[in-house]
């Protein structure tokens, strides 16, 4: 049984989603608990997988007993287990927040959430490049429907950009996968890594083109500079809990860059080593600057947070392009922190929207939120996202800066200035929303938004700091394994049918 635990993060949401879709006419009073139970079960499964992966051994699940490299394999190492847990942790508060009434504004939210989780988990687990494409499509089509959930002008307009861009991205993805298959004759990423390292010289140029196309697609999903302009409008217009779930969506692109680039174009890849790494580094710094400008110019809290997502993408990929194991450790810490905290702040924004009358979360002097609990949550979330001590954002940034060393002056300057600008932006937002105007009276038509989901996510920031030692040990091992993927390659290719 424990051998089959590995496929449960895909099967469980698939089953729950299918059941929820089958009884789509059922009352929400049935669907909400079912969805919540499925999310809690998923969290349990992923935590079990995390403990399993923390042992250090790479687990391989051979689907249909087709021995690698011929069939599709699922691979669980520390990195994928970490991302599974990060996602599952988000699912529970998002479900709770939506269940307070926002799920009435459209249809089938609960089924869509489960399919979204299935796509995400599949993308994190798969060891096959084409299968990665398929799971990307699963998570994308669920996200298309979730983004436009509830309707309205801004959502439909933003959703159209998102859908068209991602469809073009999917086409480019297939071209890149096709090219790599044509060159290496395999789709198994571990096998492909070995074959790319010993590619004949005349094929190297074609492989570079394919690799750059692949990076192009991932950079678009991650919202890197020239390709990321869809993100602010999309995240700012989505329903707040859905935007909270989408905090993990841009991280999927970053996961794919870490995983695919680390395997196929890492240090061992011969002529292809370090493909596009410097370019992405510069673009990431550009994204950071743009995100900061967006934060300063934002006119609503959700818009501010959407730009904050771009800042975190820039920070993460700039850290990635430094290329050392220490920088990757810091980037991974920052990834976990920024995903959870951005989600928590989007949930706070949801509460603000529901309580502040027609001004919603706009930065205009209208009504103030008088509740100290919401104010405290905003303060804690802002402190963490800005990167002030004692919360997790500080640790993440300190790790990244320490890893960069004094040689990377531009990285230091931009990251510190970004922190200052974030401080300004959040201060302005907080003083407008919580101090100015008369006490808020919610509209009678406003959908209530509970604070409980926020309190499930915010303490995780403190937990990341208090449990710093085991967390950093785990992340250090993860970063080391990503830098030297030979153990993973051996584990995948060594997995024999029936034996795993």
């Amino acid at each position: 049984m424990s051998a089959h635990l590995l496929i449960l993060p895909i099967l469980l949401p698939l089953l729950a989603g299918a059941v929820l879709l089958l009884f789509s006419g059922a009352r929400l009073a049935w669907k909400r608990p079912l969805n919540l139970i499925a999310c809690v079960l998923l969290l349990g499964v992923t935590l079990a997988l995390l403990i399993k992966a923390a042992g250090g051994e790479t687990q391989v699940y051979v689907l249909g007993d087709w021995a690698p490299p011929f069939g599709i394999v699922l691979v669980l190492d520390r990195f994928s287990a970490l991302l599974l847990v990060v996602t599952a942790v988000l699912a529970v508060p998002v479900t709770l927040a939506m269940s307070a009434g926002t799920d009435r504004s459209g249809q089938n939210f609960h089924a869509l959430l489960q399919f979204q989780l299935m796509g995400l988990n599949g993308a994190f687990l798969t060891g096959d490049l084409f299968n990665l494409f398929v799971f990307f499509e699963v998570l994308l089509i669920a996200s298309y429907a979730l983004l436009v959930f509830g309707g309205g002008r801004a959502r439909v307009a933003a959703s159209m950009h998102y859908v068209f861009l991602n469809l073009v991205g999917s086409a480019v993805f297939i071209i890149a996968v096709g090219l790599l298959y044509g060159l290496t004759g395999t789709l198994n990423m571990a096998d492909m890594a070995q074959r790319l390292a010993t590619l004949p010289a005349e094929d190297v140029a074609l492989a570079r083109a394919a690799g750059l196309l692949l990076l192009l697609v991932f950079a678009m999903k991650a919202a890197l500079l020239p390709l990321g302009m869809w993100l602010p409008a999309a995240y700012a217009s989505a329903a707040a809990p859905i935007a909270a779930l989408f905090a993990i969506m841009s991280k999927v692109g970053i996961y794919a860059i870490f995983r695919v680039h680390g395997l196929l174009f890492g240090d061992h890849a011969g002529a292809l080593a370090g493909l596009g790494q410097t370019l992405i580094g510069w673009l990431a710094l550009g994204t950071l600057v743009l995100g900061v400008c967006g934060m300063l110019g934002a006119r609503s809290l959700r818009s501010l947070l959407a730009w904050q997502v771009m800042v975190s993408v820039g920070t993460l990929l700039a850290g990635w392009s430094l290329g050392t194991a220490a920088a990757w450790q810091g980037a991974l810490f920052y990834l976990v922190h920024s995903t959870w905290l951005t989600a928590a702040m989007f949930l706070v924004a949801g509460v603000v929207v529901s309580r502040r009358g027609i001004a919603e979360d706009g930065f205009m002097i209208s009504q103030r939120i008088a509740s100290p609990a919401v104010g405290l949550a905003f303060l804690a979330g802002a402190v963490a996202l800005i990167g002030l001590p004692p919360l997790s954002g500080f640790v993440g940034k300190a790790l990244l800066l320490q890893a960069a060393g004094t040689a990377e002056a531009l990285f230091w300057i931009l990251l510190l200035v970004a922190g200052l600008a974030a401080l300004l932006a959040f201060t302005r937002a907080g003083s407008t929303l919580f101090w100015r105007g008369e006490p808020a009276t919610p509209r009678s038509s406003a959908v209530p938004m509970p604070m409980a989901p926020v309190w499930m996510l915010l303490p995780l920031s403190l937990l990341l700091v208090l449990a710093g030692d085991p967390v950093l040990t785990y992340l250090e091992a993860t970063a080391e394994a990503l830098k030297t993927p030979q153990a993973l390659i051996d584990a995948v290719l060594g997995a024999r049918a029936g034996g795993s």
Partner: protein
Amino acid sequence: MEALMAVCIGVLTACGVYLMLRARTFPVVMGLMLLGYAVNLFLFAMGRLATEAPAVIGRAESHADPLPQALVLTAIVIGFAMTAYVVILVIRARKTLNHDYVDDRVNERAHGAPEKSQGTRS
């Protein structure tokens, strides 16, 4: 055959990109479909082009690579689903936005500020 295939893929891609750059919803959907065809043909060609080589063992001297054929099938199915979704989205957008530009701001510049957004239930 290689030249014919290459020209086909090239023409389809060029038409697809041209239509997508029209930036109005119907041409963009058509462009996406053409690009999808081009990509599927390309993926198919990655298994190398051969005649009289079935993808079944034991029926002929030489065999075609069956994997790209399976991949193309998958890509076609996904393409169908995505096209169906995007068509519905575009119809919905036409109704909600009252125009068929991909970029809502085009309309804003031409006709002043957009009317107050209305949340419609699906």
